[in-house]
């Protein structure tokens, strides 16, 4: 034991600091091994044969020519699925490979394993797929009429006979959006020699993958180890399985490792989209602008398989009114089955579509009342103690709706823009637009979304904290998708333990239980709370082991005396604690959609300033200001990263990002034509963080990363409306919508 008096050290890299990501440097230098970079000795390459029609009956699949090619080891179809032939998180309705019918453009029909990627690709092309084309169902009204309904969520609240004096109605469309992660789908499956398999694939929740993979591969759960992956982006697109079952089947069949990497076109058909939507709204208010009733019908395009549509439509329905009080509400939300691309999770998870419609309605209402749009929103802002307009749930946690609106409105507007640098003008380097043709507009929007899982789902996250002489290791199966969970968990463990030397070990499904999904803005609070509780227990155990009263990097202290270094403390063995954290239970909705369905909420407000060239319909977003509810800024730099990235994504859907569909066929399945904002399109961002600590999040933190995207889209559109006077009821806003708003020009949707 040491008796040297050294004084207490404060922890480095704790909560509230902008400590950098541990993988920041390798990602910048190219040393980081992404999924697509993985290699195993003796591995084969997989490829997928797809059907490039939106709807067809499969007459025959003939693999003879492919199998006869040198270097081809296996060709598998739906008949070869060893176990359950369908996958899906909740309802398993998606065939692992097409079964009898093609239901969307690019649906996989067969898979191949071969010596090299080129041979695998040629063999996949050599598979003869004989199809009889069928009429695709791609129209939402038609799908509703035919009863192709995954889920209908009704909300009936208040008095159906109460009406307001001022009425505004509108129909709104949000097109299908792609999450567009830069890393395409990739995976590696390695047989373990005893009938099982280790599997790396793009995921946001290894344990939900495990459940599906074990069933489809006919293996016991402990025979499949779903490994944490190193992803190049997710945004929701990795919540559903893509190629995992396929590489698992191939690897088990040929008893060799199998790797598969999608190209960009395959990636566009290989992951889920944000649901396209068709929404009709009617808002009624009194003369002072107080909402009296809101009626809405929301149709979401689910594509052919259920995936997460049942939960997405719940969000669309419950957040149909936005962060406003209203006591009389009727909403009918429908998730519909079509032959458009499969839809699923994407940042905001069903809250974005109604946010566009409802915020557009609030602007219409402000206009009808002659009220300032900010004032109208403040008059209706949802505050703690109020009831959520749809479900009637009383807001019991901090919810700074008022503050986010006031803060964003208080930020000074950017200057008028006098410079002639073409990069700062609409049209950019194309030199389309002289400064004197530019019209400026300003728009506001506010968004609300739930945190964690809702509607009675028992939501949990496991974590284990292990303290040794080298510091602490945090074990979790939560997935780091680039969002910064690794840093936040380190920070929580450091500040809780008092020890700076902390690293996070991402475990596979055989090593630790579920941490739940990296989605729903949930891991900072869920995995974070599990780590907080485990680290708290480890600290108490450490103090108890040697009778100390404080722990820091030097070890355990009693008063001013260091009683044990970390090495001495853990000489007899590491100190560890495992925690399975659950948030407080939520209700299932009653038949009117009422109840305490959500555990918590988050809000943000955006103000967009745009420059528009009305003659050409070109838009440049000059600045977006945001007031963001964060609970507690755990890592200010990462938080700003989420805000800036989220704003770029929301801006993208406002003015360029659209999966162009033509009777179920994607016309722009490439980054040549699916345009993402470049750094010249990304606006200057002004952010104000509202820190009202959550009563239950670790150190007061809230999940927040979906909000920066949500109301960015309607704020940009509102600003374009302000500049041009066009109604703009559809996103993305295309140049022709500004130039000739009533002329859709024969384009699909």
């Amino acid at each position, binding site marked *: 034991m040491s008796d040297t008096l050294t004084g207490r050290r404060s922890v480095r890299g704790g909560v509230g600091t902008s400590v950098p990501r541990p993988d920041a440097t390798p990602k910048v230098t190219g040393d980081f091994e992404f999924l697509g970079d993985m290699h195993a000795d003796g591995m084969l390459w997989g490829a997928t044969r797809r059907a490039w029609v939106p709807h067809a009956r499969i007459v025959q699949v003939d693999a003879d020519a492919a199998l006869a090619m040198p270097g081809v080891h296996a060709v598998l179809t739906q008949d070869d699925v060893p176990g359950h032939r369908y996958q899906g998180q909740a309802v398993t309705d998606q065939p692992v490979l097409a079964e009898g019918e093609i239901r969307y453009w690019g649906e996989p029909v067969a898979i191949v394993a071969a010596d090299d990627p080129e041979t695998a690709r040629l063999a996949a092309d050599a598979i003869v797929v004989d199809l009889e084309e069928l009429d695709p169902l791609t129209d939402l009204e038609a799908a509703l009429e035919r009863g192709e309904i995954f889920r209908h969520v009704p909300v009936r609240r208040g008095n159906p006979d109460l009406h307001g004096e001022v009425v505004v109605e509108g129909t709104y469309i949000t097109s299908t959006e792609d999450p567009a992660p830069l890393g395409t789908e990739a995976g590696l499956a390695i047989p373990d020699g005893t009938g099982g398999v280790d599997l790396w694939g793009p995921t946001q929740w290894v344990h939900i993958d495990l459940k599906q993979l074990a069933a489809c591969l006919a293996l016991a759960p402990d025979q499949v180890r779903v490994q944490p992956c190193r992803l190049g982006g997710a945004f929701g697109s990795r919540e559903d399985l893509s190629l995992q079952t396929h590489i698992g089947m191939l690897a088990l069949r040929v008893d060799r490792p199998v790797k598969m990497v999608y190209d960009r076109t395959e990636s566009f058909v290989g992951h889920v989209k944000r649901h396209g939507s068709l929404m009709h709204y009617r808002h009624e208010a009194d003369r002072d602008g107080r909402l009296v009733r809101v009626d809405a019908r929301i149709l979401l395009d689910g594509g052919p398989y259920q995936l997460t549509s049942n939960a997405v439509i719940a969000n669309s329905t419950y957040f149909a009114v936005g962060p406003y009080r209203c006591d009389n509400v009727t909403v009918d939300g429908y998730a519909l089955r079509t032959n458009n691309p499969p839809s699923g999770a994407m940042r905001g998870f069903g809250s974005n579509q109604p946010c566009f419609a409802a915020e557009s309605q609030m602007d219409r209402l402000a206009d009808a009342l002659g009220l300032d749009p900010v004032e109208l929103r403040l008059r209706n802002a949802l505050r703690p103690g109020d009831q959520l307009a749809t479900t009637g749930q009383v807001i019991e946690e901090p919810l700074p709706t008022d503050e986010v609106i006031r803060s964003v409105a208080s930020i000074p507007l950017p200057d008028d823009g006098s410079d002639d640098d073409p990069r700062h003008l609409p049209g950019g380097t*194309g*030199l389309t637009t002289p400064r004197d043709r530019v019209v400026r507009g300003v728009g506001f929007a506010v968004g609300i979304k739930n945190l964690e899982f809702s509607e009675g789902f028992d939501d949990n996250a496991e974590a284990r904290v292990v303290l040794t002489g080298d510091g602490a290791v945090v074990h979790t199966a939560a997935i780091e998708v680039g969002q910064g969970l690794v840093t936040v968990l380190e920070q929580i463990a450091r500040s809780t333990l008092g020890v700076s030397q902390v690293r996070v070990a991402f475990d596979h499904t055989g090593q630790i239980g579920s941490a739940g999904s990296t989605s729903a803005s949930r891991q900072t609070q869920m995995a974070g709370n599990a780590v907080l509780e485990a680290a708290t227990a480890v600290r108490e155990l450490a103090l108890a082991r040697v009778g100390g009263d404080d722990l820091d990097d030097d070890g355990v202290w009693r008063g001013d005396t260091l009683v044990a270094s970390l090495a001495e403390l853990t000489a007899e063995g590491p100190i560890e604690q495992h925690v399975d954290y659950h948030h407080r239970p939520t209700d299932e909705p009653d038949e009117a959609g009422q109840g305490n369905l959500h555990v918590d909420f988050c809000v943000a407000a955006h103000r967009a300033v745009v420059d528009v060239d009305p003659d*050409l319909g070109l838009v440049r977003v000059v600045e977006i200001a945001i007031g963001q509810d964060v609970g507690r800024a755990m890592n200010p730099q990462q938080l700003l990263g989420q805000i800036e990235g989220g704003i770029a994504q929301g801006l993208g859907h406002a003015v360029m990002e659209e999966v162009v569909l033509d009777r179920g066929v994607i016309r722009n399945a490439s980054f040549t034509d699916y345009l993402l904002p*470049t750094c010249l399109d990304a606006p200057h961002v002004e952010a104000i963080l509202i820190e009202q600590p959550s009563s239950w999040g670790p150190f007061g933190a809230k999940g927040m990363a979906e909000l920066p995207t949500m109301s960015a889209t309607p704020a940009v559109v509102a600003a374009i409306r302000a500049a041009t006077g066009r109604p703009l009821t559809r996103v993305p806003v295309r*140049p022709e919508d500004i130039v000739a708003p009533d002329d859709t020009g024969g384009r699909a949707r």
Partner: protein
Amino acid sequence: MLIERPQDLPEALEGIGGSPHAVLLAGGTDLMVEVNLAHRRPEAVIALRRVDDLQTWEDGFIGAGVTYARMETGPLPALAELARTVGSPQIRAVGTIGGNLGTASPAGDTLPFLAAIDAEVVLGSRDGQRRLPWHEFLVGPKQTALTPGEVILGVQLPDHIPARQAFAKIGTRQAMVIATVNCCVLRDDDGTTRVAMGAVAPTVMRPREAERLASSEPRPSQAALDEFQRLVSAEVAPISDHRATEQYRRHAAGVLARRTLERCLTP
């Protein structure tokens, strides 16, 4: 896949003559996209980057291997402006004027300049050279008059280069975007005006009526500019596709051509 890497022009011409169906590779910014997306599987490729003769840019001759990066800093204002709109710096460092001609996309960004200036395309083979006016070389969307065994050596510009030049391009992003409409206007001091429009017809085209009008106006009035705009919109023949509607392109072509002409009129 067989890849040849000739070191000089005679070797290149011999190689191309010997494998007339080999695919010619310059910057690869179009070809490699097609290869990577498995749209194209060339049996043989002849890579031309090492052929110094193709990099020549002197007097009115621009070698096929001249990159956008060089055009961007070169002496011709419209060529510099259009080069800046192409892709990212990485793409501009390798993409070439010869490749843009060879691909012959209706939206090719060098093509409005070449059409407006009435460039000739210089073609070579082991049997000799020939020159074709731009409109005889560009025969349709992604179709050229290049015959097997031939390579684009470069473009020959006329002796007289109009002093006033401007290029503009519409795309729904601030940079790195394929043209929805592009446009080049050249104007002489005597008022002679040449206009070429891209992405609004099967190949780049010249709105001749509009040109005649602008050429007849030493100092065009607002009314003349209105009429010029109307004529351009009337003369183009765009289609609707996933990038824009026919109606938008027709409207935008007129606006863009007028503004580009206005830039040439500004002292």
